[in-house]
Protein backbone atom coordinates (compact mmCIF):
# COMPACT_ATOMS: atom_id res chain seq x y z
CA UNK A 1 0.00 0.00 0.00
CA UNK A 2 1.22 3.52 -0.80
CA UNK A 3 2.13 5.49 2.31
CA UNK A 4 2.62 9.23 2.22
CA UNK A 5 4.10 9.19 5.74
CA UNK A 6 6.77 6.48 5.68
CA UNK A 7 7.19 4.10 8.63
CA UNK A 8 10.67 5.07 9.85
CA UNK A 9 10.75 2.85 12.94
CA UNK A 10 13.44 0.59 11.42
CA UNK A 11 15.82 3.57 11.13
CA UNK A 12 15.84 4.24 14.88
CA UNK A 13 18.97 3.00 16.66
CA UNK A 14 18.79 2.79 20.44
CA UNK A 15 21.59 2.50 23.00
CA UNK A 16 22.57 -0.82 24.58
CA UNK A 17 19.94 -2.62 26.60
CA UNK A 18 20.09 -2.29 30.37
CA UNK A 19 18.22 -4.13 33.09
CA UNK A 20 16.38 -2.26 35.83
CA UNK A 21 13.53 -3.11 38.17
CA UNK A 22 10.14 -1.61 38.83
CA UNK A 23 8.16 -2.75 41.86
CA UNK A 24 10.32 -5.91 42.00
CA UNK A 25 9.88 -6.86 38.33
CA UNK A 26 12.83 -6.99 35.92
CA UNK A 27 12.45 -4.57 33.02
CA UNK A 28 14.64 -4.09 29.98
CA UNK A 29 15.27 -0.54 28.83
CA UNK A 30 17.99 1.30 26.98
CA UNK A 31 20.85 3.20 28.61
CA UNK A 32 19.82 6.82 29.07
CA UNK A 33 16.20 6.19 28.13
CA UNK A 34 13.49 8.21 29.78
CA UNK A 35 12.01 6.09 32.58
CA UNK A 36 8.35 6.78 31.75
CA UNK A 37 8.98 5.79 28.13
CA UNK A 38 10.88 2.63 29.10
CA UNK A 39 8.07 1.53 31.42
CA UNK A 40 5.50 2.27 28.73
CA UNK A 41 7.42 0.22 26.13
CA UNK A 42 7.68 -2.64 28.63
CA UNK A 43 3.90 -2.56 29.09
CA UNK A 44 4.08 -1.24 32.68
CA UNK A 45 1.23 1.22 32.45
CA UNK A 46 0.10 1.36 36.10
CA UNK A 47 2.71 3.31 38.04
CA UNK A 48 0.68 3.95 41.19
CA UNK A 49 -2.82 4.04 42.63
CA UNK A 50 -4.48 7.33 43.53
CA UNK A 51 -4.48 7.99 47.29
CA UNK A 52 -8.21 8.73 47.68
CA UNK A 53 -10.01 6.24 45.45
CA UNK A 54 -7.24 3.74 44.63
CA UNK A 55 -7.79 4.14 40.86
CA UNK A 56 -4.81 3.02 38.77
CA UNK A 57 -2.73 5.84 37.26
CA UNK A 58 0.04 6.08 34.71
CA UNK A 59 2.03 8.70 32.83
CA UNK A 60 -0.31 11.43 31.59
CA UNK A 61 1.22 14.84 30.79
CA UNK A 62 4.72 13.45 30.02
CA UNK A 63 6.28 16.85 30.79
CA UNK A 64 6.78 16.92 34.53
CA UNK A 65 3.60 18.71 35.59
CA UNK A 66 0.76 16.32 36.45
CA UNK A 67 2.65 14.14 38.99
CA UNK A 68 0.71 11.05 37.89
CA UNK A 69 3.91 9.14 37.00
CA UNK A 70 5.74 9.67 40.30
CA UNK A 71 7.84 6.72 41.49
CA UNK A 72 10.45 6.25 44.22
CA UNK A 73 14.16 6.10 43.41
CA UNK A 74 16.76 6.08 46.22
CA UNK A 75 14.02 7.00 48.66
CA UNK A 76 13.11 10.17 46.73
CA UNK A 77 9.76 10.64 45.02
CA UNK A 78 10.51 11.64 41.42
CA UNK A 79 8.58 11.91 38.17
CA UNK A 80 9.29 8.95 35.90
CA UNK A 81 8.96 11.32 32.93
CA UNK A 82 11.92 13.35 34.23
CA UNK A 83 14.12 10.37 35.19
CA UNK A 84 16.57 8.23 33.24
CA UNK A 85 17.05 4.49 33.04
CA UNK A 86 20.43 2.97 34.01
CA UNK A 87 21.74 -0.56 34.56
CA UNK A 88 20.65 -1.87 37.95
CA UNK A 89 18.35 1.06 38.72
CA UNK A 90 15.82 0.13 41.39
CA UNK A 91 12.48 1.86 40.94
CA UNK A 92 9.76 1.43 43.53
CA UNK A 93 6.14 2.47 43.60
CA UNK A 94 5.52 5.78 45.32
CA UNK A 95 1.89 5.08 46.18
Amino acid at each position, binding site marked *: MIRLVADQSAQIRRAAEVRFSFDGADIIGHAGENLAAALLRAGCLILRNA*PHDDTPRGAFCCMGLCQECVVRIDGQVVEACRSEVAEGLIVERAG
Partner: protein
Amino acid sequence: MRDVFDIAILGAGPAGGNAALASVQQGLRTVLLDEQPSAGGQVWRARSASILAAPETPESRAGAHLRSKLSTSDITYLKDARVWQIAREGDIWQLQVLSGGQSDAVEANALILATGAREFVQPVPGWTTPGVIGLAGATALFKQNLTLPGRRTVVSGTGPLLFYVASEIRRLGGEVAAVVTPNTRADWLRALPALAGKPRLLGRGALWIADLMLARVPIYWGHAVTEVLGHDAVSDVKIARLDAEWAPQKHVATIGADSLCLGNGLIPQIEPAQMLGVPIHYDAALGGWVPDVSPDGVTTIASLYLCGDGTGIRGANAAALQGRLVGLRVAADLGRNTQQARTAAQRAWRRAACFGRSMTVLSVARPGLQAVTSEDTIICRCESITRRQLLEEIDKGAASANAVKSGLRVGMGPCGGKFCQTAIAALIAKSRGRDVSTVAPPTARPPLRPVPLGAAAGSFDYDDLPIPKPAPL
Protein backbone atom coordinates in the same frame (compact mmCIF):
# COMPACT_ATOMS: atom_id res chain seq x y z
CA MET B 1 28.88 37.96 48.17
CA ARG B 2 26.78 35.96 45.80
CA ASP B 3 27.18 36.40 42.05
CA VAL B 4 24.36 38.54 40.61
CA PHE B 5 23.56 38.02 36.91
CA ASP B 6 22.36 40.88 34.69
CA ILE B 7 19.48 38.73 33.58
CA ALA B 8 17.85 35.44 34.53
CA ILE B 9 15.57 33.65 32.07
CA LEU B 10 13.11 31.00 33.20
CA GLY B 11 12.42 28.42 30.49
CA ALA B 12 14.72 27.32 27.64
CA GLY B 13 12.15 26.80 24.89
CA PRO B 14 12.02 28.83 21.66
CA ALA B 15 11.19 32.03 23.58
CA GLY B 16 13.56 31.73 26.54
CA GLY B 17 16.38 30.29 24.45
CA ASN B 18 16.26 33.14 21.94
CA ALA B 19 15.86 35.75 24.68
CA ALA B 20 19.05 34.39 26.26
CA LEU B 21 20.91 34.48 22.94
CA ALA B 22 19.80 38.07 22.26
CA SER B 23 20.79 39.29 25.71
CA VAL B 24 24.17 37.55 25.77
CA GLN B 25 24.95 39.03 22.34
CA GLN B 26 24.43 42.44 23.94
CA GLY B 27 27.12 41.56 26.47
CA LEU B 28 24.76 40.86 29.36
CA ARG B 29 25.65 38.24 31.94
CA THR B 30 22.84 35.78 31.33
CA VAL B 31 21.62 32.73 33.23
CA LEU B 32 19.08 30.41 31.59
CA LEU B 33 17.17 27.93 33.77
CA ASP B 34 15.11 24.97 32.59
CA GLU B 35 13.64 21.93 34.32
CA GLN B 36 14.23 19.51 31.44
CA PRO B 37 17.49 17.65 30.69
CA SER B 38 18.03 19.63 27.44
CA ALA B 39 16.98 23.01 26.08
CA GLY B 40 14.24 23.24 23.44
CA GLY B 41 11.09 23.42 25.52
CA GLN B 42 8.23 21.10 24.64
CA VAL B 43 8.05 21.91 20.94
CA TRP B 44 11.77 21.44 20.27
CA ARG B 45 12.36 18.80 22.94
CA ALA B 46 15.69 16.97 22.52
CA ARG B 47 16.11 13.23 22.05
CA SER B 48 17.19 11.24 25.09
CA ALA B 49 20.69 9.79 25.26
CA SER B 50 19.19 6.38 24.43
CA ILE B 51 18.56 7.41 20.81
CA LEU B 52 21.79 6.89 18.88
CA ALA B 53 20.36 7.59 15.44
CA ALA B 54 16.97 8.49 13.99
CA PRO B 55 15.57 10.37 10.99
CA GLU B 56 15.43 14.15 11.45
CA THR B 57 12.20 16.16 11.50
CA PRO B 58 11.64 19.93 11.15
CA GLU B 59 11.19 20.04 14.97
CA SER B 60 14.36 18.06 15.73
CA ARG B 61 16.37 20.30 13.38
CA ALA B 62 15.02 23.51 14.92
CA GLY B 63 15.80 22.21 18.40
CA ALA B 64 19.31 21.10 17.44
CA HIS B 65 19.96 24.54 15.93
CA LEU B 66 18.91 26.31 19.15
CA ARG B 67 20.89 23.91 21.37
CA SER B 68 24.02 24.33 19.28
CA LYS B 69 23.79 28.14 19.46
CA LEU B 70 23.22 28.00 23.24
CA SER B 71 26.14 25.63 23.81
CA THR B 72 28.61 27.88 21.94
CA SER B 73 27.45 31.02 23.75
CA ASP B 74 28.55 32.50 27.06
CA ILE B 75 25.17 31.84 28.63
CA THR B 76 25.19 30.10 32.01
CA TYR B 77 22.71 27.34 31.29
CA LEU B 78 21.28 25.38 34.23
CA LYS B 79 19.50 22.20 33.11
CA ASP B 80 17.33 19.98 35.32
CA ALA B 81 16.80 23.17 37.32
CA ARG B 82 13.36 23.69 38.82
CA VAL B 83 12.46 27.18 39.94
CA TRP B 84 9.99 26.77 42.78
CA GLN B 85 9.99 30.25 44.31
CA ILE B 86 10.74 33.76 43.04
CA ALA B 87 10.98 36.85 45.23
CA ARG B 88 12.25 40.39 44.97
CA GLU B 89 15.00 41.16 47.48
CA GLY B 90 15.59 44.90 47.22
CA ASP B 91 16.48 45.53 43.57
CA ILE B 92 17.38 41.92 42.90
CA TRP B 93 15.34 38.94 41.75
CA GLN B 94 16.01 35.87 43.84
CA LEU B 95 15.06 32.49 42.40
CA GLN B 96 15.01 29.33 44.49
CA VAL B 97 16.21 26.55 42.23
CA LEU B 98 15.88 22.85 42.92
CA SER B 99 18.47 20.74 41.13
CA GLY B 100 19.72 17.25 41.97
CA GLY B 101 17.69 17.21 45.21
CA GLN B 102 19.31 20.46 46.45
CA SER B 103 17.87 23.94 46.50
CA ASP B 104 20.04 26.98 45.79
CA ALA B 105 19.40 30.64 45.08
CA VAL B 106 20.14 32.33 41.75
CA GLU B 107 20.11 36.14 41.65
CA ALA B 108 19.69 38.60 38.80
CA ASN B 109 18.86 42.25 38.15
CA ALA B 110 16.24 41.51 35.49
CA LEU B 111 14.00 38.50 35.03
CA ILE B 112 12.37 37.11 31.88
CA LEU B 113 9.67 34.48 32.34
CA ALA B 114 9.37 32.19 29.30
CA THR B 115 7.25 29.53 30.96
CA GLY B 116 5.46 28.26 27.87
CA ALA B 117 2.24 26.32 27.82
CA ARG B 118 0.58 23.26 29.18
CA GLU B 119 -2.31 21.25 27.86
CA PHE B 120 -6.01 21.51 28.56
CA VAL B 121 -7.93 18.26 28.58
CA GLN B 122 -11.69 18.37 29.17
CA PRO B 123 -12.25 15.46 31.58
CA VAL B 124 -14.19 12.46 30.24
CA PRO B 125 -15.23 9.30 32.09
CA GLY B 126 -12.15 7.06 32.24
CA TRP B 127 -9.56 9.75 31.41
CA THR B 128 -7.48 8.71 34.45
CA THR B 129 -7.05 5.19 33.00
CA PRO B 130 -3.38 4.32 32.33
CA GLY B 131 -2.86 4.50 28.57
CA VAL B 132 -4.66 7.84 28.25
CA ILE B 133 -2.09 10.58 27.71
CA GLY B 134 -2.25 14.21 26.69
CA LEU B 135 -1.97 15.10 23.03
CA ALA B 136 0.96 17.39 23.80
CA GLY B 137 2.27 14.72 26.17
CA ALA B 138 2.38 12.31 23.24
CA THR B 139 4.58 14.74 21.31
CA ALA B 140 7.02 14.71 24.24
CA LEU B 141 7.15 10.90 24.03
CA PHE B 142 7.81 11.04 20.29
CA LYS B 143 10.42 13.77 20.34
CA GLN B 144 12.42 12.67 23.36
CA ASN B 145 12.05 8.90 23.23
CA LEU B 146 10.61 7.98 19.81
CA THR B 147 8.17 5.90 21.81
CA LEU B 148 4.54 5.20 21.00
CA PRO B 149 1.67 5.57 23.50
CA GLY B 150 0.52 2.01 22.66
CA ARG B 151 0.02 -0.41 19.80
CA ARG B 152 -3.29 0.94 18.56
CA THR B 153 -4.17 4.49 19.46
CA VAL B 154 -7.19 6.75 19.16
CA VAL B 155 -6.04 10.34 18.63
CA SER B 156 -8.56 12.95 19.72
CA GLY B 157 -8.61 16.68 20.22
CA THR B 158 -8.56 20.09 18.61
CA GLY B 159 -6.35 22.17 16.38
CA PRO B 160 -3.33 21.24 14.29
CA LEU B 161 -1.58 19.24 17.04
CA LEU B 162 -4.07 16.43 16.44
CA PHE B 163 -2.86 15.60 12.94
CA TYR B 164 0.77 15.98 13.93
CA VAL B 165 0.30 13.36 16.64
CA ALA B 166 -1.58 10.96 14.34
CA SER B 167 1.10 11.31 11.69
CA GLU B 168 3.97 10.80 14.15
CA ILE B 169 2.35 7.58 15.41
CA ARG B 170 2.34 6.30 11.83
CA ARG B 171 5.90 7.48 11.17
CA LEU B 172 7.12 5.67 14.29
CA GLY B 173 5.44 2.44 13.25
CA GLY B 174 2.24 2.54 15.31
CA GLU B 175 -1.38 2.12 14.33
CA VAL B 176 -3.92 4.94 14.50
CA ALA B 177 -7.33 3.42 15.25
CA ALA B 178 -9.17 6.67 14.53
CA VAL B 179 -8.78 10.44 14.57
CA VAL B 180 -11.59 12.20 16.45
CA THR B 181 -11.87 15.98 16.43
CA PRO B 182 -14.50 18.47 17.55
CA ASN B 183 -13.32 20.73 14.70
CA THR B 184 -15.28 20.45 11.48
CA ARG B 185 -13.97 20.72 7.94
CA ALA B 186 -15.66 24.14 7.87
CA ASP B 187 -13.59 25.26 10.88
CA TRP B 188 -10.45 24.37 8.96
CA LEU B 189 -11.71 26.11 5.80
CA ARG B 190 -12.09 29.29 7.84
CA ALA B 191 -8.45 28.96 8.92
CA LEU B 192 -7.27 28.56 5.31
CA PRO B 193 -6.55 32.27 4.67
CA ALA B 194 -4.12 32.27 7.60
CA LEU B 195 -2.62 28.95 6.49
CA ALA B 196 -2.20 30.22 2.91
CA GLY B 197 0.63 32.45 4.15
CA LYS B 198 2.42 29.34 5.46
CA PRO B 199 2.56 27.09 2.36
CA ARG B 200 5.08 24.70 3.88
CA LEU B 201 2.95 24.06 6.96
CA LEU B 202 -0.18 23.81 4.85
CA GLY B 203 1.54 21.23 2.65
CA ARG B 204 2.69 19.24 5.64
CA GLY B 205 -0.80 19.20 7.15
CA ALA B 206 -2.40 18.22 3.85
CA LEU B 207 0.08 15.35 3.53
CA TRP B 208 -0.73 14.07 7.03
CA ILE B 209 -4.46 14.05 6.31
CA ALA B 210 -4.05 12.49 2.87
CA ASP B 211 -1.86 9.76 4.38
CA LEU B 212 -4.49 8.96 7.02
CA MET B 213 -7.17 8.79 4.34
CA LEU B 214 -5.07 6.53 2.10
CA ALA B 215 -4.48 4.23 5.08
CA ARG B 216 -8.26 4.22 5.64
CA VAL B 217 -7.91 5.59 9.16
CA PRO B 218 -11.35 6.98 9.99
CA ILE B 219 -11.35 10.74 10.66
CA TYR B 220 -14.38 11.79 12.68
CA TRP B 221 -14.86 15.55 12.12
CA GLY B 222 -17.25 17.24 14.57
CA HIS B 223 -16.95 14.41 17.11
CA ALA B 224 -15.46 13.95 20.57
CA VAL B 225 -14.50 11.14 22.92
CA THR B 226 -17.23 10.67 25.54
CA GLU B 227 -15.89 7.71 27.51
CA VAL B 228 -12.80 5.56 27.91
CA LEU B 229 -13.55 1.91 28.72
CA GLY B 230 -11.25 -0.46 30.64
CA HIS B 231 -10.04 -0.34 34.24
CA ASP B 232 -6.31 -1.10 34.38
CA ALA B 233 -5.78 -0.29 30.72
CA VAL B 234 -7.74 1.20 27.84
CA SER B 235 -9.91 -1.34 25.98
CA ASP B 236 -12.26 0.88 23.96
CA VAL B 237 -13.05 4.52 23.33
CA LYS B 238 -16.61 5.75 22.84
CA ILE B 239 -17.26 8.73 20.60
CA ALA B 240 -20.26 10.94 19.87
CA ARG B 241 -21.24 13.51 17.28
CA LEU B 242 -21.21 17.13 18.52
CA ASP B 243 -23.53 20.05 17.86
CA ALA B 244 -22.29 23.49 16.78
CA GLU B 245 -21.37 24.39 20.39
CA TRP B 246 -19.61 21.02 20.75
CA ALA B 247 -22.17 19.42 23.06
CA PRO B 248 -22.32 15.65 22.45
CA GLN B 249 -25.49 14.56 20.65
CA LYS B 250 -25.52 10.94 19.58
CA HIS B 251 -23.24 7.99 20.34
CA VAL B 252 -21.61 7.07 17.06
CA ALA B 253 -19.01 4.37 17.62
CA THR B 254 -17.05 2.33 20.15
CA ILE B 255 -13.50 1.98 18.90
CA GLY B 256 -11.16 -0.76 20.13
CA ALA B 257 -7.76 0.68 21.17
CA ASP B 258 -5.14 0.22 23.89
CA SER B 259 -4.32 3.91 24.16
CA LEU B 260 -5.79 7.37 23.69
CA CYS B 261 -4.10 10.72 23.08
CA LEU B 262 -6.47 13.45 24.21
CA GLY B 263 -6.10 17.24 24.26
CA ASN B 264 -8.17 20.38 23.77
CA GLY B 265 -5.61 23.05 23.08
CA LEU B 266 -2.81 24.66 25.04
CA ILE B 267 -3.08 27.14 27.89
CA PRO B 268 -0.44 29.70 28.86
CA GLN B 269 1.47 28.93 32.06
CA ILE B 270 0.90 32.23 33.82
CA GLU B 271 1.40 31.21 37.46
CA PRO B 272 4.90 32.66 37.98
CA ALA B 273 3.84 36.01 36.44
CA GLN B 274 0.58 35.96 38.40
CA MET B 275 2.45 35.20 41.62
CA LEU B 276 4.73 38.20 41.06
CA GLY B 277 1.75 40.52 40.70
CA VAL B 278 1.34 40.91 36.94
CA PRO B 279 -2.35 41.64 36.22
CA ILE B 280 -4.09 39.09 34.00
CA HIS B 281 -7.02 39.20 31.57
CA TYR B 282 -9.04 36.69 29.57
CA ASP B 283 -8.51 36.24 25.84
CA ALA B 284 -10.00 33.05 24.39
CA ALA B 285 -8.06 33.51 21.13
CA LEU B 286 -4.81 33.31 23.11
CA GLY B 287 -5.77 30.21 25.10
CA GLY B 288 -7.51 31.77 28.13
CA TRP B 289 -6.03 33.85 30.96
CA VAL B 290 -2.97 35.81 29.87
CA PRO B 291 -0.76 38.38 31.62
CA ASP B 292 -0.95 42.08 30.73
CA VAL B 293 2.23 42.56 28.75
CA SER B 294 3.49 44.61 25.80
CA PRO B 295 4.77 42.83 22.65
CA ASP B 296 8.33 43.50 23.80
CA GLY B 297 7.69 41.85 27.15
CA VAL B 298 7.29 44.82 29.49
CA THR B 299 4.99 44.33 32.51
CA THR B 300 3.73 46.60 35.28
CA ILE B 301 6.44 45.15 37.53
CA ALA B 302 9.86 46.80 37.28
CA SER B 303 12.55 44.63 35.62
CA LEU B 304 10.13 41.74 35.05
CA TYR B 305 9.58 40.70 31.42
CA LEU B 306 7.55 37.97 29.74
CA CYS B 307 7.72 36.24 26.36
CA GLY B 308 6.51 33.23 24.42
CA ASP B 309 3.44 31.04 24.82
CA GLY B 310 3.24 31.97 28.51
CA THR B 311 1.89 35.35 27.33
CA GLY B 312 -0.70 33.73 25.02
CA ILE B 313 -0.58 30.74 22.67
CA ARG B 314 0.90 31.93 19.37
CA GLY B 315 3.13 28.96 18.55
CA ALA B 316 6.85 28.21 18.38
CA ASN B 317 7.80 30.58 15.56
CA ALA B 318 6.19 33.56 17.23
CA ALA B 319 7.71 32.53 20.57
CA ALA B 320 11.23 32.40 19.12
CA LEU B 321 10.83 35.85 17.53
CA GLN B 322 9.34 37.33 20.68
CA GLY B 323 12.14 35.84 22.78
CA ARG B 324 14.68 37.73 20.67
CA LEU B 325 12.60 40.92 20.84
CA VAL B 326 12.29 40.76 24.64
CA GLY B 327 15.98 39.94 25.08
CA LEU B 328 16.79 43.08 23.06
CA ARG B 329 14.30 45.13 25.08
CA VAL B 330 15.88 44.11 28.38
CA ALA B 331 19.29 44.99 26.93
CA ALA B 332 17.92 48.44 25.98
CA ASP B 333 16.59 48.96 29.51
CA LEU B 334 20.04 48.04 30.82
CA GLY B 335 21.65 50.72 28.64
CA ARG B 336 22.35 49.03 25.26
CA ASN B 337 21.21 50.56 21.99
CA THR B 338 19.01 47.96 20.29
CA GLN B 339 16.33 50.17 18.72
CA GLN B 340 16.91 49.12 15.09
CA ALA B 341 17.03 45.40 15.79
CA ARG B 342 13.88 45.65 17.90
CA THR B 343 11.86 47.33 15.17
CA ALA B 344 12.68 44.49 12.75
CA ALA B 345 12.08 41.80 15.39
CA GLN B 346 8.71 43.24 16.36
CA ARG B 347 7.54 43.34 12.74
CA ALA B 348 8.50 39.67 12.22
CA TRP B 349 6.84 38.68 15.49
CA ARG B 350 3.54 40.35 14.53
CA ARG B 351 3.25 38.28 11.35
CA ALA B 352 4.02 34.99 13.14
CA ALA B 353 1.73 35.89 16.06
CA CYS B 354 -1.20 36.51 13.72
CA PHE B 355 -0.85 33.01 12.26
CA GLY B 356 -0.39 31.41 15.69
CA ARG B 357 -3.53 33.07 16.94
CA SER B 358 -5.63 31.61 14.11
CA MET B 359 -4.40 28.12 15.06
CA THR B 360 -5.24 28.79 18.74
CA VAL B 361 -8.78 29.80 17.78
CA LEU B 362 -9.18 26.36 16.16
CA SER B 363 -7.91 24.65 19.30
CA VAL B 364 -9.95 26.37 22.02
CA ALA B 365 -12.80 24.19 23.32
CA ARG B 366 -16.33 25.56 22.92
CA PRO B 367 -18.58 25.56 26.00
CA GLY B 368 -20.69 22.57 24.95
CA LEU B 369 -17.73 20.23 25.28
CA GLN B 370 -18.18 20.41 29.07
CA ALA B 371 -21.04 17.95 28.68
CA VAL B 372 -18.57 15.09 28.00
CA THR B 373 -17.74 15.31 31.72
CA SER B 374 -20.35 13.17 33.48
CA GLU B 375 -21.41 13.64 37.13
CA ASP B 376 -19.08 10.91 38.34
CA THR B 377 -16.09 11.91 36.23
CA ILE B 378 -12.98 12.84 38.20
CA ILE B 379 -12.07 16.46 37.42
CA CYS B 380 -9.27 16.91 40.00
CA ARG B 381 -6.99 13.98 39.27
CA CYS B 382 -4.77 14.52 42.35
CA GLU B 383 -7.57 14.36 44.91
CA SER B 384 -10.02 12.27 42.84
CA ILE B 385 -12.75 14.91 43.08
CA THR B 386 -15.70 14.48 40.75
CA ARG B 387 -17.92 16.89 38.87
CA ARG B 388 -20.77 16.05 41.27
CA GLN B 389 -18.69 17.06 44.33
CA LEU B 390 -17.68 20.28 42.61
CA LEU B 391 -21.28 21.10 41.70
CA GLU B 392 -22.37 20.53 45.32
CA GLU B 393 -19.67 22.94 46.50
CA ILE B 394 -20.72 25.52 43.91
CA ASP B 395 -24.38 25.09 44.93
CA LYS B 396 -23.38 25.73 48.54
CA GLY B 397 -22.17 29.15 47.45
CA ALA B 398 -18.62 28.77 46.17
CA ALA B 399 -18.57 31.25 43.30
CA SER B 400 -14.86 31.56 42.59
CA ALA B 401 -11.94 29.28 41.87
CA ASN B 402 -10.43 30.28 45.23
CA ALA B 403 -13.64 29.39 47.10
CA VAL B 404 -13.91 25.97 45.47
CA LYS B 405 -10.22 25.38 46.19
CA SER B 406 -10.62 26.24 49.90
CA GLY B 407 -13.66 24.02 50.23
CA LEU B 408 -12.51 20.92 48.39
CA ARG B 409 -8.69 21.11 48.11
CA VAL B 410 -8.92 21.03 44.30
CA GLY B 411 -5.69 22.60 43.12
CA MET B 412 -3.87 21.81 46.37
CA GLY B 413 -2.71 18.36 45.29
CA PRO B 414 0.72 17.58 43.86
CA CYS B 415 -0.02 19.08 40.42
CA GLY B 416 -1.04 22.40 41.99
CA GLY B 417 -4.23 22.67 39.95
CA LYS B 418 -2.52 22.58 36.57
CA PHE B 419 -4.88 19.95 35.17
CA CYS B 420 -8.21 20.87 36.78
CA GLN B 421 -8.50 24.64 37.10
CA THR B 422 -9.59 25.37 33.52
CA ALA B 423 -12.39 22.79 33.70
CA ILE B 424 -13.42 24.02 37.18
CA ALA B 425 -13.61 27.65 36.05
CA ALA B 426 -15.80 26.60 33.12
CA LEU B 427 -18.04 24.62 35.50
CA ILE B 428 -18.43 27.58 37.88
CA ALA B 429 -19.24 29.86 34.94
CA LYS B 430 -21.85 27.46 33.58
CA SER B 431 -23.50 26.79 36.95
CA ARG B 432 -23.72 30.51 37.76
CA GLY B 433 -24.78 31.56 34.27
CA ARG B 434 -21.67 33.69 33.92
CA ASP B 435 -19.09 34.06 31.22
CA VAL B 436 -15.86 32.12 31.79
CA SER B 437 -13.95 35.41 31.46
CA THR B 438 -15.41 36.41 34.86
CA VAL B 439 -14.02 33.37 36.71
CA ALA B 440 -10.38 34.15 37.42
CA PRO B 441 -7.88 31.40 38.19
CA PRO B 442 -7.02 30.90 41.86
CA THR B 443 -4.29 32.97 43.50
CA ALA B 444 -0.90 31.62 42.44
CA ARG B 445 1.31 30.64 45.35
CA PRO B 446 4.71 29.03 45.82
CA PRO B 447 5.95 26.39 45.44
CA LEU B 448 5.64 26.69 41.65
CA ARG B 449 6.72 23.04 41.44
CA PRO B 450 6.70 20.26 44.07
CA VAL B 451 9.79 20.54 46.25
CA PRO B 452 11.00 18.12 48.97
CA LEU B 453 10.66 19.72 52.41
CA GLY B 454 14.31 19.00 53.23
CA ALA B 455 15.50 20.78 50.08
CA ALA B 456 13.21 23.75 50.75
CA ALA B 457 14.58 24.10 54.27
CA GLY B 458 18.14 23.89 52.92
CA SER B 459 20.86 24.17 55.57
CA PHE B 460 18.43 25.73 58.02
CA ASP B 461 19.10 24.64 61.60
CA TYR B 462 16.37 24.37 64.21
CA ASP B 463 18.59 26.01 66.84
CA ASP B 464 18.95 29.07 64.59
CA LEU B 465 15.22 29.69 64.73
CA PRO B 466 14.84 33.31 65.81
CA ILE B 467 12.61 33.48 68.87
CA PRO B 468 10.96 36.89 69.22
CA LYS B 469 10.82 38.58 72.61
CA PRO B 470 7.55 37.90 74.41
CA ALA B 471 4.97 40.64 73.93
CA PRO B 472 4.60 42.91 76.96
CA LEU B 473 1.61 42.01 79.10
